[in-house]
């Protein structure tokens, strides 16, 4: 039991921090422009694919640095020539634009790289078990993911709270017009934040690609989960995004690890039931089974009962 909890905890934190890398960019973009970027996870996918292609020729470490930069530049271009243009048609059009972009990027990825899973692997230097605990190995690559994620989190926090750029960004989030009045180029700030957010997503893709697989559906798998985090954590709140990322990460790993069903609960109270009834699926429902729907359940409950999210102070 202890080993189960220990490894679930560790895996949950790794997943959570990975999700945070995506969510941090998305929540900044969301709070600035008021647009939920549906294509955010697509940039994560592009990061993985770029890194895969680069790693073939130049190795993993070059990809780790170059791929996020490429994705960030692409994101800036999308903001400058796509989103800013669509802005004139209103909010709904912007949302639909990012949705269409997500669809298009998936098709383009399939066009360029094909539909099969790519053999994108972690570098050999990280292919060893870091430690063994109760006979179970903990791969070094996961520790590497953990270190990178924590590093990014600290860096982001320092930039946003300690530097002048961070100050301007925070001002632009809360009072864009006033910031523009003070002589700051707010559209440029928007473009920069969008680009950096996409670059972070790309970086997440680069390090998640070897662990979670590099395939055209990888954006779709993670995409909606990241929205859940942003909404649950609260609009524009990095702390909220951090807490929600860990929460979702732990929720998912623990729900998969702990194999309990409604049946067990009922037997605790000595209740039996008809095994053939139409509701039989309800009685045999187990935790691993409902693991994929838990985040969405959380999302709906939060939106109904606390629309500002856990740490937000504005309604979405």
């Amino acid at each position, binding site marked *: 039991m202890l080993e189960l909890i220990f490894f679930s905890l560790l895996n949950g934190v790794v997943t959570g921090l990975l999700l945070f890398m995506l969510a941090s960019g998305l929540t900044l973009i969301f709070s600035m422009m*008021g647009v*939920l970027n549906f294509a955010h996870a697509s940039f994560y996918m592009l990061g993985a694919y770029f890194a895969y292609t680069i790693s073939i020729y130049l190795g993993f470490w070059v990809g780790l640095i170059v791929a996020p930069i490429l994705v960030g530049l692409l994101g800036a271009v999308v903001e400058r020539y*796509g989103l800013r*243009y*669509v802005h004139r*048609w209103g*909010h*709904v*059009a912007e*949302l*639909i*634009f990012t*949705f*269409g*972009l997500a*669809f*298009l990027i*998936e*098709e*383009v990825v*399939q*066009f360029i790289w*094909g539909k099969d899973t790519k053999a994108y692997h972690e570098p050999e230097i990280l292919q060893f078990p870091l430690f063994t605990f109760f006979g179970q190995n903990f791969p070094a690559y996961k520790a590497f993911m953990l270190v990178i994620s924590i590093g990014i989190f600290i860096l982001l926090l320092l930039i946003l709270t300690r530097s002048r750029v961070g100050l301007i960004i925070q001002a632009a989030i809360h009072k864009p017009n006033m910031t523009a009045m003070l002589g700051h180029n707010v559209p440029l700030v928007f473009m920069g934040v969008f680009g950096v957010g996409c670059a972070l997503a790309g970086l997440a893709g680069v390090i998640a690609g070897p662990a979670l697989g590099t395939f055209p559906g990888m954006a*779709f798998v993670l995409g*909606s989960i990241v*929205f*859940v985090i942003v*909404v649950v954590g609260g609009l524009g709140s990095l702390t909220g995004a951090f807490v929600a990322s860990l929460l979702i990460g732990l929720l998912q790993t623990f729900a998969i690890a702990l194999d309990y069903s409604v049946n067990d609960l009922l037997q605790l109270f000595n209740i039996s039931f008809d095994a053939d009834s*139409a*509701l*039989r*699926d*309800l009685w045999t*429902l187990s935790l691993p*089974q*409902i693991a*994929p*729907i838990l985040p*969405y*359940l959380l*999302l*709906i409950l939060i*939106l*109904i009962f606390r*629309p500002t999210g856990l740490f937000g102070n504005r*309604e*979405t």
Partner: protein
Amino acid sequence: MSEITKTASPATARPLMKTLLPWIGFFILLLALPNIFSSNVGLYTMNLMGIFVIFALSYNMLLGQGGMLSFGHAVYFGLGGFMSVHFMNYIEDGDFTFPMYLIPIFGGLIGLVFGIIIGSFSTRRAGTVFAMISLGVGELMAASSLIFVAFFGGEEGVSGDRTTGPDLMGINFGQDIHIYYLIAGWVFVTVALMYLFSRTPAGRMANAVRDNAERAEFVGYSQRKVRFVSFCASGFFAGIAGGLFALNFEIVTEENLNALTSGTVLLMAYIGGVGFFIGPIVGAVIFTLLQSILSNYTDIWQLYVGILFVLTVMYVPQGLTGIFMMHTAAWRMRRVGSLILPYLRAGIPALAMLTGIAAFLETIHHMRSSVEGETAMSLMGVDFDSHSFVAWIVILALVVVGGYLTRSQLPQLKEAWEMANKPPAQREGAGS
């Protein structure tokens, strides 16, 4: 209220014949279509088209008329389909007797029930909150459908048999042509109902709430209730579309209520044009044509659809119907004829450029996906070697020359457009 009666009065004042004429035309068109396209593929495509027309129109009740962007509309479509297919099986088992052609009613009812349940909490706000709740509900349902195997049938779905019900005048819907007329009948009735709904005070208030929720509240309407009514009606019609899907394909799977279907309906409605009642119909027809015809010729048709969608969102947010409707002013002044030549002058090179781009994508795709060493490919009836130098020169020439000529023709097109849309008085002044 006075605003509504004012805008409504010219419509009622129109002669009855003029109001009914489009509907009579629509009816005749529905009857005539299977005689024109009588092949199996034609019938299959038209059946799918009819289902998607209802589905897209029901979606537009939310997006176009109510200003609610939904990312989970397939939930009602899929649930309607599952409910209908279960009832088909009950009829087959003889549990009760019910005419098969009315089965979609059950689909509609479950759509309505879920519309009431989900609408009761999701319609409080429009905009991003609504979009997020709809996305959450959609994902929730899609994930649940794999858990509750008894109702959703797991991965392989639930199948039924539409021929087992009591006959209708000797017809048991075994043939595709029968199911076509059945779908056509449902399309006619539901399209008429949805049109009438948009003319009721509830439909009009949905427009008002979409445009300015605050003002609508001051008039005395609760924005939440107005949205709720639209939402429920939309769920009902989506359920009917799902029921027809179940009747047509005799199988409903998890795929029918997942995010892909939700995305498809958004695509259809938006490409067609959400600002017009007829827009989603156009969108559904075009999308189905692309899906069933284009996919015969190319593997990457979804890439084209994606490009079309993004370009539509960026440059023509009023949709394809909007492009046609832009010409009403010129049409009224009888000047559309003067636009034909400029359109041809810009359109032919543009077509060449598009052909070049498509050929470029196809050739690249062929080079990457074909078997090693196989270089011969065929495109639009032209056979060529995808690795040859000549082919690439031709493609490049099409793109560059076509693009250049299109660009050079744009100023005259713009001029002609402005001429055609100038108010009459000014034209006379300029002419004399």
